[in-house]
Structures are given as C-alpha cells and as structure tokens.
C-alpha cells in the first residue's frame, strides 16, 4: 500500500476548466516533460498516468535503454529510459524524475523515465496541425512537430513506435 500511496496520478481533467475559459476553438492537450533541458510533449490521450516514485527492478541482460520493470498495481510494466531512447547521456535519477506510463502501438503499457514532468498544456488544434511535419529522417520519426510557446520550443513526440525502436 505504501508504494501506491506515493504514486501520484495527474489527470487532465484538473486542467479542463482553465482552458475551457480561453475559447480558442477545439484544443488539443499535451503533457510536457523535460529530458536534458529540452521540453517535449506527449498527447494526454497517450499518457495514462505519471508516477512520482517507482521501484525499478533491473532485468539482467536487457538492452541499455530498458531500465527494468515496475509493479504497477499488480501489473508488471517495462520501464524505458527516455535519455537513452533519445540518444542522450545517462543520468542518475533524482527527486524530479518521473515515470510516464504510456500505451504504445502494440497495446503494451510502458513506463518512460523522464527528468521531470512539467504540466498539461493546451494548444488550439490549428497550431498543432501547422506544426505537424513529415520527417524522413529515421532518427526523428517519433517527432511530430515543434510548437513555440513562451519563447521556448516544445517538441511534440509520438511514443507509439517505442516498441520497434528499442527492440532493434
């Protein structure tokens, strides 16, 4: 029980009222997170929950990008390190680190360890549509587009293909 009590669940509903008021047409909501100073965002619909603290059991012999498995209320969930996934240097997890629980294309639930989870941001759908770009570069295929926000750039990512990437 103790472990579960520590798991923090953030639901997008909390943010609804705030954005409903702004009346900018249909909004699409994204969960922003940071990895190595960069801000990324995942569609809220892809994010099931965010865990503050999870005990990761390493799997001997697994690829480097896979940190191990966690016990998510009785289900065993594989946890992937976003840093290694994005081709960045490994970094020790600190108190800001979070596990984002997402569903990938195969239907599998996967945990993604990120440096921190910031907030849920809403863009009008038109902004997102404009940002969408077709990328031919294989390394960047999980990048959907880039949206400027408060003098920063937010990289919209798609983690659906996570399983193909780590498996190879």
């Amino acid at each position, binding site marked *: 029980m103790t*472990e579960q009590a520590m798991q923090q669940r953030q639901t997008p509903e909390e943010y609804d009222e705030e954005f409903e008021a702004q009346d900018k047409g249909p909004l699409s909501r994204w969960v922003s997170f940071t990895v190595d100073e960069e801000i990324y965002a995942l569609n809220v619909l892809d994010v099931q929950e965010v865990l503050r603290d999870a*005990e990761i*059991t*390493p*799997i*001997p*012999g*697994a*690829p480097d990008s*896979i940190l191990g*498995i*966690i*016990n998510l209320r*009785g*289900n*065993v*969930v*594989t946890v*992937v390190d976003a840093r290694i996934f994005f081709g960045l240097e490994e970094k020790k997890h600190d108190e800001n680190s979070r596990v984002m629980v997402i569903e990938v294309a*195969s239907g*599998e*639930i*996967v945990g993604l360890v990120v440096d921190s989870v910031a907030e849920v941001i809403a863009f009008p759908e038109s902004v997102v549509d404009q940002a969408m770009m077709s990328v031919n570069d294989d390394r960047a295929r999980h990048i959907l587009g880039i949206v400027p926000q408060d003098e920063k750039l937010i990289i919209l990512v798609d983690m659906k293909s*996570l*399983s193909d990437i*780590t*498996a190879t």
Partner: protein
Amino acid sequence: MAFEPDNELLQDFLIEAGELLNGLDEQLIELEQSPDDADRLNSVFRAFHTIKGGAGFLEVHPLVEICHGAEDTFNLLRNHEIRMNSRIMDVMLQVIDSLNGMFDRLRAGQYPESVSPEFLKEIEALARPEAAAPVKPKAEPESNPVPAAEAAVATEDDAFDRMLADLDAAESSGADSVAPEASNAADDDLITDDEFENLLDELHGKGQFQAPQASPEAEKVASATAESDEITDEEFEAVLDELYGKGKSPTADDESAVAPASDAAPKAAPQPKPPSKSSASAGSEKKAEPAAKAKSPEAHKPPVETTVRVDTERLDSIMNLVGELVLVRNRMNTLKSTFENEEISSVIATLDMVTSDLQGAVMKTRMQPVKKVFGRFPRVVRDTARTLGKEVNLELEGEDTDLDKNLVEALADPLIHLVRNAVDHGIEMPDQREQAGKPRAGTVLLSAAQEGDHIRLSIRDDGSGMDAEVLRRKGVDKGIVDPDAAERLTDQECFELILHPGFSTKDQISDISGRGVGMDVVKTAITKLSGTISIDSSMGEGTQINIKVPLTLAILPTLMVIVSGRKYAVALSVVNEIFEMADKEINVVDGQTTITVRDRAVPLFRMTDWLGLRGEPPGQRSETDQVVMVQHGAQLMALVVDSVIGQEEVVIKPLGELLRIVEGFAGATITGDGHIALILDLPGMVRRNAGRGHQRMRSVA
C-alpha cells in the same frame, strides 16, 4: 421479423457446431467397429443435420451442401437401406476434413469455399444405389424455394421468413391451414416435411403461443417427443425464443427443432396419408404416449438450467484477479507477525482459508476432461495405421481426468505426435508381429491419471521397443555424447537421447524403430508446461512414454533465492536439492567448475555470472553461499546463489513485448512483500550462456 446472422450468432454456431464436429470424428471411427449401432447412426445423422441447419441460418451454402449429402447417406444408413462400408467411411472422413477446413475459414472470418462438384457427387453417389425405391433423389435445399417444410432447415432468409410467416399463420388459424401445405412437400423431401410438421406440432403443443388449438393432449405429445429424443425443455424454449427473435443461440434452436423431428421421420414415413391434421403427430403420438406417461412428471416440470457458457477470457481474468488476491493474502501473512493483535491474526487466518478455497474453486472452473484431447486419437490412429498398412487398436484410459484448460490445449499437439509415432515406429507390420508371436493387431494404450498435484499421461505400445545400444551408437555418431560418456549412460538415458534436438534425422526411422521425428519438439512443449517426459522401453515388448504435467499453469510453486540482493524465483519442479556450498569439494575439470555431490561431479554455475552481474570469480566460496541443484533435461546443474529464502507460490506475469529479446526469464511475479521477483527460465538461461562454452552434453552422466 428479420433474421440477421450477426457475428455473435456465427460465434455461437462455430462453438456448438464445432463441438459436434469434433465428436463426429470419434463417432465415425466407432461406427467402423460397430456399423449397425443404431443410436450412433442416429446421432451422427443428427449432428450433420444440426450443422446443416445452423449453416443454413447463417447462409453458409458450402457447409449446407456438404452436410446435406452426408445427412442423406446417414439417413439411409440408419434406416438400414444401405450398409456402412469402408468406402462410405472414407468419404465421410473426408467430409469431416472439409468441414473442419470450412470451420477454420469461418473462424478466420472468411466465407468458406465450396468443395469440388466431383466430391459432392461422390457423396451423393453414396446415397444413390439402393436408395432408388423408397427415397427420391433430393433437391438441394437452397435451389428449391418451394415448400414451407424446407424452411425447417432454412437456408435462405426469405425461406426462413416464410416459415415464420407460416408459423404466425398457424398461430392464428391453427395447424390445419399449414399442415396441408407441409404435406404437399412430402413428395419433395421426405425428412424435412416431417420435420416441419413435427416442429409445428411442438410449437403448438407447447402452448407457448397461446394458440387455441394447443390442446393438453398435443402438449403431452410435444413434451413426450422432446423427452424421448433427449431434448430438454430449455432447449425447446430456446427454439421458441429464437423464432420470436429473442434468443441468441441459433444452434440450440436447430438442435432441438431438428433433432426430434428427424427422429420422428422414419416413424411417420410409412404412412403417406392425405393431408389431415398432421399425420406425423398422429404417428408419433401413438409411439410417444407410453413415454409420456412414464416421463410426464419431468416432462411437465422442466429441469432448471444448470450450465452457463463463459468466455475463456473472462475466466482468465477471474483467475488473474484470484492470483492478485493470493498475493495480497501472502502479503498479509507476512505482515501478520508485525501486528501483535489476536483479532487481526484470526481475521487474516480466515482470509487465508477463504482465499485458498476460492483459488481452488476458480481453478476447478477451468478444468476440462482430458477427453477433449483424447477424442481426436481414434482418428489419428486409424489414419496413420491405414496409411502404413498396420493393424492397431487404441485403448483409452482415464479420459475423465480433469486438467487446466490451457494445458488441455497445449498438450494436444505433443500427444498427437507421440501417438502417431507409436503407431508409425512402435507397432510392427502385422506379418512381423505374427512371426514374433504377437497378435496381428498392435495395441496403443493412452492413459491419464491424477497423481497429487500432477497429471500423468502415458502412451504405451506393444511394439518392438527400442534398442539402447543402437541409440547409444547413434548418439555418439551424431556427436551428441562423447564416446566415453555414452558408455556410462544407463538404458533409460539412452532412450532419452531421442529427445535431443540433434537426434532426429530421416535415417533413424528406417534403421531402428526409434522415434527420432521431432521428439525434441515434444520435449520442448512439455518443458514449457513445467512438465517432464520420460521413456521406458524393452526390446520386443514395447515402449512407454510418460509425461507428467502440473494440474494448472496459473500458479507456479517456486523456490525463492537471493542473488546480489535481489529475489529470483526458480520453478520448484526443476529443483532437486539444496545444500551449503562450504562443505563440498570443488574442482575445475576441462575449464568447467564442478562440484562433487555424493561422488558425482556436477557442473557448477554462479548465478551472478549467469545473470551478468558482477560477482566473485568462479570457484571462490563464501561461507554463506548455497547451492541449488536443478535438473535441466537429463542433466544436473548446480547453481550458486547468495541465499535461499524458501518456497512460495507465485502467479506468473509475462514480461512485456519490449523484453521478448531477453532470454532466461519466464516472467516476473510480485512477491509477498510487494516487490518484483524475476522467474528464471532454466532452458533460456542455459541458451543465453551457451556461448561461454559452459554447456556441453558431456556431463550427462
């Protein structure tokens, strides 16, 4: 009243008709033994008829065509107009195969293809020769949209609708108005006419429609026929529901609507009376009356339905939840000692007990008799024996032994393989057997029995047996064992060489009566089920293969060990013994560390090395190290762990797709204290470490 064959109906049909189809195989083989068994002929006939009816509802014409032909043949057979012979049997078995093929396509969501017209003709030809006089050739149901009676086995929506319309008409104006029409069809199709009349009788007799003609007498007849044909009232009510669009199970409908009718057909057939108030009812009434008297109490008080069909997925999820509960229970038990409160302790004890009972009860719901697998074997044996020109009797024992549904399915293929091998390589040719002073026909005995928390399956043949010496030589030739190691092999170990992957090649089959064909596949399958396989054979007397599998796969008894501070679970079924490392002699032989246990050198592996964790160099012992001796196939291995915690029953949670490339783990589990423990998969671990040159079969001895 539209009748749309939606997906759910199709699924129901596939399940129920699929069961009938499975049964048909076995029944046909039994018919070959006793061709005049009237009950069996009838039930085969009904099965075909039911499948045809259901297929008709769903407008699967290829199925209807083929069943129709088979049904005609069996109609003649059961009326003793023709006799069962091997030609009919061969064609019928082909029919079953085609049906199975069509079912597979239907299951895959495709419309099945028709069988070739030649094959259809062949089937129809069976029914022709002696059939000329009493029975006119029948038109295909779907090509003949005329009689209302046809609709009883409706193949077209409109035909079915018409039947419904007729029924509605009958409801308002009584049977009289429909009976003539139905009887007109008599010339056209002997069976379906009577069926239809009978159906009408039943519908009216049941009184469910509040038809004014539903006299008490008719009701008695209806329920009596239903009873005597072993159709229960619920099934019958399902028909009614179905007709009125309430029910969901089309096959239940067909079965009950059609089966009694078809049985009544022969009785009614000899009296081609002018259209009167249902001659069939009059005919069957006489026959049925005694039965009605005898059975009237039950007939009027329908038994309560006692079974429910449950999706296996739902069962699986219940099983998972119970698994969770067991884990919570385990955690509670661990925590119990921290509370020094008697009340809490007693509550936990109760929880413990209830959970155990619940676990057992849920497990029971997943149990299926092994008959489900065994049912296929008469056919397998027959076909194999026929192809080879051998004579083989198959005996089955303990068919009612229950085991977990998943196991029943998983065991099917390995067992088929073994039985086929027994016939192919075990049993000798009839002449050969005679020379050896054995009966011409060989016997294969397939038996199942529960032994504690295990099921033992054995396949025994009285064939020529295997020659340990030949196997030993082959093993050396194939490089599976070293010559000197081979010398030390016991006979049994020699037999088990055939389970080795490298052993199976073509030439063994002709050289010796070995069973080299894919035995390693069987072995792998059984190992996957945490089972074991052993072989015993004696020259000239036969071979026995024993398989032991756990009753269920859902919960795995394991031994919990600690390696580098983390918990790992090892399946208890492979653990032979546990001992302290300190007081044993350790040598390095040919680069391989071994530990001597009771004068036997066993290869020693450090789990830390195996897992790729940092540890002390091999051979260096720590006072507290413990050794778990495990059995990997025929080979013993000693694994060094930091410490042994004890036995724990765990629920296996599969690792995610991302981890499928990682070998050596069968899954993970959540332990009593809420942590995760990885479950070791010994064969996978061995493969994973095979590159290091640790693994050679040389230490079989």
